[in-house]
């Protein structure tokens, strides 16, 4: 069953994703860290679906669809900013502030 261990692993991976968002400067890698967070949550869903039935896995299926859609749009946005700044370094992207 591995319910507890899966939930803990999920939490650790989620936290690692958050840390990645914090420390990385490359917009693409930051986005990948967000994907890691989504994956971590998927693990929670799957672990719980052993008890609660197939609906949890169906949710995971939808989450993957969402992740794919986000990837398409997100990478397009990153391409768009790259056209302006010739860089995807987030520390350089701070025109808007104050």
């Amino acid at each position, binding site marked *: 069953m591995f319910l507890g261990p899966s939930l803990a692993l999920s939490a650790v991976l989620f936290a690692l994703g958050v840390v990645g968002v914090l420390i990385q400067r490359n917009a693409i890698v930051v986005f990948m860290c967000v994907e890691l967070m989504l994956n971590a949550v998927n693990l*929670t869903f799957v672990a*719980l679906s052993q008890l609660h039935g197939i609906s*949890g896995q169906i949710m995971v299926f939808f989450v993957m669809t969402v992740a794919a859609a986000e990837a398409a749009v997100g990478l397009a*946005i990153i391409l768009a900013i790259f056209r302006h700044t010739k860089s995807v370094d987030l520390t350089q992207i701070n025109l*808007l502030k*104050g």
Partner: protein
Amino acid sequence: MLIDLSTPGGAVLGLLPELALTAWALVILLVIAWRHTTVADTRLVGQLSIVGYVLAAGAAGWLGLQGAHAEGLNLMIALDGFRFVSDILLLWIGAAVTVISLRWLERQGMLAPEYYVLLMLATVGMMLLAGAADMITLFLGLEVMSISVYVLAGYDRSRRASAEAALKYFLIGAFASGFLLYGIALTYGAAGQFIFSLIGGQLAATPPTLMAKLGMGLLLVGFAFKVAAVPFHAWAPDVYEGAPTPVTAFMASGVKAAAFLALARILAEVFPAFVELWRPVVGGLAIATILVGNLTALAQTSLKRMLAYSAIAHAGYLLLAIWAQSDSGTAAVLIYLLAYGLTTVAAFGILASIERTGTETVRLADLEGLYSTRPLAATGLSVCMLSLLGFPGTFGFIGKWLLLSSALSQGEWLLPLVAMIGSGISIGYYLPVVLAMVMKPAPNPTAHDTIRFPRPATVAIACCVFVILVLGFWPNPVLNFASRQAVQLRHTAVVIAPR
């Protein structure tokens, strides 16, 4: 009218407004396939898209008039007056933003008619989010809305600020989605359900568990991001400033409204049993949001950014009504969203017309003497500012009054006091706008010559301003209507027997 949502026919009927808008969006896409080159094409598409909003609003109104309700449980989508009213509110915002975008896109050289399709799809997402009756629809609606708005925020591709706004919104938005999803997962774990009313029943049957508490906390984090509550607000000013102005209007009114409606529904249907747990959280968020939003707005010189912080402050006031968790609170949310939506769309609409082509932001100094050259625009913007300030005689006052009284009727003192202090601080930045327009002379006679008020936008803005004033003195019908719809959102869970 009784609708069985478990059958395909019932689902189609129940989702008629969303389906109508989506179908019309597809029709528009087909039109774009042939006509997407000239200014006239863009304009045509924009005008056509308004039909979709009207159709969808008609469908929502029809369902509402038929008294549509679900046979058994609300599966996937809610069938109650609250949803139909939310739908019409959101559709109205979508249509109004479309109208103020009509000539603006041409002026700014953004000739891609897909803009209107994305606006429609975002509205579909907002309607699904606000009307969702289970977590899956909620999440998907949220994502449909968010993905469309991420793109819209970056739609002005010639400006770096727009791309930056899109990137910031996207990265932090996706990050927040992760929290929200985690919340959904843990709530699912604690209740074994995705359907709101069943989760509510399950959670009410047993004392709060660790998993349920964490799930609720993470869901609150996700929504706090969407409504831009402090300290999850930091993205909002940057994104609002960088996005194309009509899109900013859409985000500040529509996205925020949808998130608030969904939050009201979730707290009412899923977590009514945890009310004592989440109240301190929502109250704390409200206090922080009101104070930070209002104080930081004081320091702004760019009008768009000032309105962004003001939008944050208004989210704080709305949290007050959510906090109250009562029928009058829900009615206050509806009324305040209407008042705030009308005002925000009108204010950003005027701002969009004042903007010069290109990248320059409108500063306070740019408004000086507007009253002498463009009296109607200045009057309109003044009314908007007074309504946001909560000046009696405007609809904003009615909204604020209802918010405060809904919180006060729960015997709460601190929150209304903070709200009134915040409202006092807000004089410091709303008033200078009126002051600059009415009391300062224009820096030079040609200062306002670049301002263009296209007819459709003027009509839409004038309607908004007129309604703000009329409802300020005669809000009766709207108030009665809102309170009738609000009571349909139950604040108690149907407790199911423990398994």
